[in-house]
């Protein structure tokens, strides 16, 4: 029994055993630090959900021998790309397979977070980190100068002390706000609500319907077009071993403004003539939803303060167009951990020392990409035609191009052009392409 004057002390505290948190705990524990990994769910990842597929470059960066540790992956992503749905039931597929996507281990694997995150946190525990589940961090303990020196939890005698705290609390960034690193609550216009169904189907059925040779091949597709009622949003399709994950994400403010019921929007999408046959006869295994911080660079909090750093969704580390987020979380968790290790060496946990974390993020793809894509979320808000007009146009254009109507080709091309201009004036279309370039390239 601990008496109340015995403080619980660690070398470092990580809040949240998701992808960022467990990565941070893993790296610090490996360096010999005594790490507490505090998780509010029953299990690591108990509160987590994604589309999804997970990128291996980030896993390998933290855990080079990850493939020997039997990660609970589903199929590898051997085919990826865009699907475009039109309102009249058409589907244009623009996917790539093989080539770089045929490498082994694959660039990405489908996974279920409820299973993957448990394994991921186990790797941190194997390095010696102590996973403390069923415990919610409510606030911070500070010294007289305001430096963070620990956390307060929801349990009796629940104060835990450490000179450095890495906050990986996820999208609901209450603690990041308590640190004073961001001065406002989440904004519905910058948050996507993603929801999906996992539908069980026999392995052979999945192979046949998605044109996959065997269970060693898998498809991950972003679905554009007639998915989200013309509102900013994107759908997705992922093939697991014996189930298919289908869903979509929409901006939360649109869901609220139009009083949409997510399951109705999802049902509508799943009844699209191109989607329905893919999941026909399957058994619904799971229905779930989660928020995604898609505000991008402009929504990122300050990333550090004296004694604390923030990583992952809590820091808005998401690249919505490329479905990146899990990889950023893992690498950011690692970089925060390396900064904490360095701080321990110096015995200095001041904001100045921890500013190294931001410098490390700037050196890597994380802050580079976040900055380059800083206009992307605004771009989608102001360009609904990318959700609506263009995917329908592409279906139309290809449909006409590959049909023989017994008419001169000059008329055909005129018709194709007409199917564009009926949807969007030509000069506006050129402008759209330019603003897309601007949003993606960061011009």
């Amino acid at each position, binding site marked *: *029994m*601990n008496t109340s004057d*015995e403080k*619980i002390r660690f070398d470092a505290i990580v809040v949240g055993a998701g992808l960022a948190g467990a990565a941070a705990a893993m790296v610090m524990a490996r360096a010999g630090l005594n790490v507490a990994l505090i998780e509010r769910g029953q299990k690591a990842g108990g509160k987590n959900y994604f589309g999804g597929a997970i990128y291996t470059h980030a896993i390998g960066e933290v855990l080079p021998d990850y493939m020997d540790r039997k990660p609970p992956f589903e199929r590898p992503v051997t085919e990826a790309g865009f699907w475009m749905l039109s309102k009249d039931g058409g589907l244009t597929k623009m996917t790539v397979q093989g080539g770089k996507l045929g490498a082994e281990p694959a660039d990405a694997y489908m996974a279920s977070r409820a299973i993957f995150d448990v394994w991921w946190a186990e790797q941190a525990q194997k390095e010696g980190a*102590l*996973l*403390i589940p*069923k*415990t919610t961090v409510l606030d911070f303990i500070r010294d007289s100068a305001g430096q963070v020196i620990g956390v307060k*939890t*929801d*349990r*009796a*005698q*629940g*104060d*835990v002390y450490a000179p450095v705290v890495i906050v990986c609390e996820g999208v609901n960034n209450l603690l990041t706000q308590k640190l004073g690193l961001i001065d406002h609550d989440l904004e519905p216009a910058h948050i996507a609500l993603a929801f999906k169904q996992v539908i069980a189907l026999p392995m052979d059925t999945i192979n046949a319907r998605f044109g996959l040779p065997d269970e060693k091949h898998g498809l991950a597709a972003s679905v554009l077009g007639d998915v989200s009622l013309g509102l900013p949003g994107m759908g997705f399709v992922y093939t697991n071993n014996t189930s298919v994950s289908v869903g979509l994400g929409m901006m939360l403010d649109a869901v609220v403004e139009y009083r949409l019921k997510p399951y109705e929007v999802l049902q509508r999408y799943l009844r699209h003539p191109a989607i329905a046959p893919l999941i026909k006869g399957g058994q619904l295994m799971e229905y779930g939803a989660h928020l995604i911080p898609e505000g991008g660079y402009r929504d990122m909090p300050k990333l550090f303060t004296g004694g604390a750093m923030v990583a992952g969704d809590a820091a808005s580390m998401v690249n919505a167009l490329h479905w990146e987020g899990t990889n950023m979380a893992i690498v950011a968790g690692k970089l925060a951990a390396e900064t904490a290790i360095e701080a321990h060496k110096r015995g200095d946990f001041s904001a100045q020392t921890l500013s190294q974390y931001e410098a490390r993020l700037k050196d890597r793809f994380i802050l580079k990409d976040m900055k380059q894509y800083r206009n992307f979320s605004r771009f989608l808000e102001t360009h609904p035609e990318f959700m609506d007009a263009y995917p329908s146009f592409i279906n139309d254009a290809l449909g006409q191009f590959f049909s023989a109507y017994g008419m001169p080709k000059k008329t055909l091309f005129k018709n194709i052009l007409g199917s564009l201009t009926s949807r969007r004036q030509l000069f506006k279309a050129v402008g759209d392409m330019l603003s897309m370039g601007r949003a993606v390239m960061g011009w």
Partner: protein
Amino acid sequence: MFHALVAVKQVPDTTNIRIDPETGNLVREGVPAIMNPYDAHALASAVEWKRKLGGKVTVVSMGPLSFTVTIREAVELGADVGYLVTDRKFAGADTLATSYVLAQVIQMIHEKEPIDVLFFGKQAIDGDTAQVGPGVAVRLDLPIITYAVKIRDIDLAKRQIIVERKTERWTEVVEAPLPALVTCEKEIAEVPFAPLPDLIRSLRYEPEVLTVDNTGIFDAESIGVRGSPTVVFKMGTPPLPEPGEKINSREVGVEAAVAAAFAKAEAAGILTSVLGGVK
């Protein structure tokens, strides 16, 4: 110094369990394992009394090594020591063999550190027999108080315990000399949200493992399948009762529907007996 012993069992969470319609067996696959809820409340009561009187709570569980998580949960809830009684030779035990093994282990612990009160859940939610607690009491020749809802007092000086127990008609207040065995209803104590130091201790806690060989206290004829005379002939789900007759008040009107229902009840002899009771 108060010494409480609590027997805990790991059970499948029967709130979401299914029964295989073909075999009649429980489908345990994918069902989370939990500490038997009645045992958790019994443990919570033991820990409350430990905090009042000062002393120690010892937990005993019999089952495979995977029951370690249940021992850890007991430590999280305030147990000081946990024994896991585990051996392949115990497999297939019915309540007779189980109560024998537990009685032998408890006797061994008692000889080292005398026990004042033995806390059991009133029954496990998987088997629902409510036999193991009483079985242990009989084997150890202890006073047994079943279906306890409140422990009014444990007096270590007078060596007595006063317990309220629930029966179908009333609450009995029972006094017994110590050591005594109590089987507990959920009302006995609230399961606490553990303090952080207890949770942290539990995460790395390794139970004391007791086997047939490392104790040498078990008679081979009394354990496992050989010590278990119970044979399950058949398991199944009871058929759903036939639905009763419906009188649609929208068709016949509310008053006519009520009158018809009363007439039926009277004809069946239900109504007179109810009214007779009220008079």
